[in-house]
């Protein structure tokens, strides 16, 4: 208690960390310099830090998650480098533990989730013909909480020491006896902070989709991506509170010596595994269902066909979301649950393959006899089908409880979940990024570079992860930092590492593509650069901040496609413009996240005074919000007219 500085407040002794320290300081100094030199501080504050525009919030999510894909990817490459050959000592065991923990945690919480949230923010209100999300202020709070949590997690390896108990953070390994010091506290508090933001996002999008659709857009006329986000929001609302509780209980165990997960006082370490995976398995669907939604949009757009089996797609998602809450024990078949329990969870897990199979066939039938155009987003979508098939089939293999005793925690598992997470979620995110890019920025990413990046990344991905199935079956277990010669593992590992570097090159091409296309990318003058089917393509690119000058009326699925087929204007298109009600910007969400960060940082080091100051700051921000009444303004008709005609619209 009280103020004590841990021995190594700044982590020392590790050359790689010194390099990271220097790079971080240089990056921050660079950012400050550029902002000051070009006098951009006010712009940054007015346009971005205080924004409540869902499109800008979406872009901030995307930037953050691309950065985190880079950071997590470097971690992946470090691990793959260490494993390339037997008996390497580039990383020591402790450092390796920290890296795979950081890698897994960052990829799931700070890359995949925010990437999905970013695309949701960009596309959903536009797809349903709405001018905003239901709670724009709350939306900004969600983003900044994610951001504060992400920053808190990312400073761990430089200040105080990184967590090292794996992204699953199992007790008792993560308890205060075996893991004293701030590392695990970082994990717990940063995920807690960003998790609250995620829950709020789920609530926000559920209400947005249920209550703010354009007239005529019944549930069964919603674009598939919006459907997937609706289902995802429901899963978030049911799953995240469980994570909140799990994290809080372990935090209390560590900080205040309670006994939820310690054997000593009668606690139950398996309780962590259960709570964690009751959240954790649905989490997999939180990140993969929206990716499915994206594939559905992209495939029907570029096959120029209505999505095959729309109703079946919807119902299969509903079934998946329900069953996803009944499978969590498959993550610990080997931890002594008994045959009856294992059988139940084995069967429920396999059951998910059925609705998932339905979806795969629907995509295939949508492609069948379509006029397929292989744009970059379409390549990612089509490339997803075989990788996901491999990931899914090996998933069913893992679901066979007795067999799982063989594969459990081996590289077979590592390969399986990367096939699903990379081949499903990351491919989906990238498809969505290329697809909606013109809508966000008004220009297209270069197609030729996009294809190069796709092929390098896709081939690299398979080269990296396919061999791991074999080396897994040969007995190489997960989280091994090195291995001896002569086990026959070396060629597999070496090939795998080569594949990882190919993916890295693919990523770099993607980044280069962005920089290149800012200047040279094809400009989107029509707002409908892909000849799209859904409402977001009916407005100019980038979308004006009020989205729709007139709220569209919808009478079918693929509303915009049908509007394009009709030559005559619809009555609603001729209605006079009216002033539009918009929420005001606010700096408070950003400031509140700083207080959260302070509270989290204090509690990480068990400096309670600092934790309390931070929480009081949070409370004060909430109080200010409670007293806020005038938080919107009107955009007048003449301004709308000016904006619309500047975008080339009558």
């Amino acid at each position, binding site marked *: 208690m009280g103020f004590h500085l841990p021995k190594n407040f700044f982590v020392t002794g590790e050359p790689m960390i010194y390099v990271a320290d220097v790079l971080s300081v240089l990056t921050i100094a660079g950012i400050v310099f550029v902002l000051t030199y070009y006098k951009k501080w006010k712009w940054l504050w007015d346009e971005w830090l205080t924004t409540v525009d869902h499109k800008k919030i979406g872009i901030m999510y995307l930037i953050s998650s691309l950065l985190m894909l880079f950071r997590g990817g470097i971690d992946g490459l470090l691990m793959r480098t260490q494993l390339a050959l037997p008996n390497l000592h580039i990383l020591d065991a402790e450092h390796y533990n920290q890296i795979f923990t950081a890698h897994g945690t960052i990829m799931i919480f700070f890359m995949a989730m925010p990437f999905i949230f970013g695309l949701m923010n960009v596309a959903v209100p536009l797809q349903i013909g709405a001018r905003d999300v239901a709670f724009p202020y709350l939306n900004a709070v969600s983003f900044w909480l994610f951001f504060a949590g992400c920053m808190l997690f990312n400073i761990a390896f430089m200040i105080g020491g990184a967590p090292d108990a794996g992204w699953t953070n199992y007790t008792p390994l993560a308890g205060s006896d075996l893991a004293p010091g701030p590392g695990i506290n970082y994990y717990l508090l940063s995920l807690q902070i960003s998790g609250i933001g995620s829950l709020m996002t789920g609530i926000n999008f559920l209400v947005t989709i249920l209550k703010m659709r354009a007239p005529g857009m019944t549930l069964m006329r919603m674009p598939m991506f919006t459907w997937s986000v609706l289902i995802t929001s429901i899963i978030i609302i*049911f799953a995240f*509170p469980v994570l909140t509780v799990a994290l809080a209980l372990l935090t209390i165990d560590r900080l205040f010596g*309670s*006994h939820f997960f310690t054997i000593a*006082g009668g606690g139950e370490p398996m309780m962590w595994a259960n*709570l964690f995976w009751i959240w954790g398995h649905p989490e997999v669907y939180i990140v993969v269902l929206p990716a499915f939604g994206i594939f559905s949009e992209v495939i029907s757009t570029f096959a120029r066909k209505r999505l095959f089996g729309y109703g079946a797609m919807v119902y299969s998602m509903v079934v998946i979301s329900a069953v996803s809450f009944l499978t969590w024990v498959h993550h610990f078949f080997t931890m002594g649950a008994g045959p009856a329990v294992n059988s139940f969870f084995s069967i429920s897990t396999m059951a998910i393959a059925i609705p998932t199979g339905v979806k795969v066939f629907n995509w295939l039938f949508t492609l069948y006899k379509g006029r397929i155009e292989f744009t970059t987003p379409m390549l990612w979508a089509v490339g997803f089908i075989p990788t996901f098939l491999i990931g899914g089939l090996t998933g069913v293999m893992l679901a066979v409880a007795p067999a799982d005793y063989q594969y459990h925690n081996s590289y077979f598992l590592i390969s399986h979940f990367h096939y699903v997470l990379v081949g499903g979620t990351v491919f989906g995110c990238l498809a969505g990024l290329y697809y909606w890019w013109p809508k966000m920025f008004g220009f297209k990413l270069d197609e030729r570079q996009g294809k190069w990046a796709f092929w390098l990344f896709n081939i690299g991905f398979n080269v990296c992860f396919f061999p791991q199935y074999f080396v897994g079956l040969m007995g190489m277990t997960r989280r091994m930092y090195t291995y001896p010669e002569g086990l026959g593992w070396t060629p597999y590992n070496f090939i795998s590492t080569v594949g990882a570097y190919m993916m890295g090159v693919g990523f770099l091409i993607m980044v280069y593509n962005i920089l290149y296309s800012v200047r040279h990318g094809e400009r989107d003058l029509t707002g409908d650069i892909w000849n799209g089917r859904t409402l977001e393509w009916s407005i100019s690119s980038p979308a004006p901040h009020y989205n729709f000058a007139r709220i569209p009326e919808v009478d079918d699925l693929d509303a915009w496609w049908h509007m394009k087929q009709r030559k005559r204007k619809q009555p609603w298109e001729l209605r006079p413009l009216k002033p539009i009600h918009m929420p005001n910007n606010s700096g408070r969400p950003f400031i509140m996240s700083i207080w959260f960060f302070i509270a989290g940082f204090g509690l990480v080091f068990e400096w309670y005074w600092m934790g309390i100051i931070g929480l009081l700051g949070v409370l004060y921000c909430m109080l200010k919000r*409670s007293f806020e009444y005038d938080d919107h303004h009107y955009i007048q008709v003449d301004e709308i007219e000016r904006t619309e005609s500047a975008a080339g619209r009558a």
Partner: protein
Amino acid sequence: MAEHALQTHGKSTEKSALPLEYSTEESRLKIFGFWVFLGAEIVLFASLFATYLVLAGRTAGGPTAKELFEVKDFMMETIILLTSSFTCGLGTLALRNRSKGGILFWYIVTLLLGLSFIGLEVTEFIHYVGEGATIQRSAFLSGFFILVGTHGAHVSLGILWMTLILIQLIQRGVTAATARRVFIVGLYWHFLDVVWIFIFTLVYLMGVAY
């Protein structure tokens, strides 16, 4: 549905059939959003209940529920909290009549009952700690303090929140915006009561019965 057609934030489309707190689109969205939030709160408490029930028998040689709980004490707490839910309901009724005085009166009664509930709970906790029944003593006690304490923290936050809203009511009178705030804090209060009924049965009654 007609609401779907409404697209602006907080546009005051007064419809005579709707109660004041539902009269703007913003209010309807926020009330619905709050219901969804309560759904998430149910999951949160359900997880805490599950944890408590798993750990309830694990006293590690420390005091058991039967030894600790006093029927008289938790009955008092229960009666006070249930009454506060009733008075809060009367406050909502006063809201329907747009009576500022009525709302203030019943909500202040609710606040006072809430405060005495918290007072009793704090006394109860201090008493236990005095007997060596601390959160560090056993898994059962960890589960107990965190479950009941989380509820107590919610009630305390509710008291603070309700106070703020009453101040706004005094400042601004009964408007569409204050009506919504009054209504939502009322929902929250009733929700905490429902949770308490589960605590009363699953923690206290079962604790003294077995």
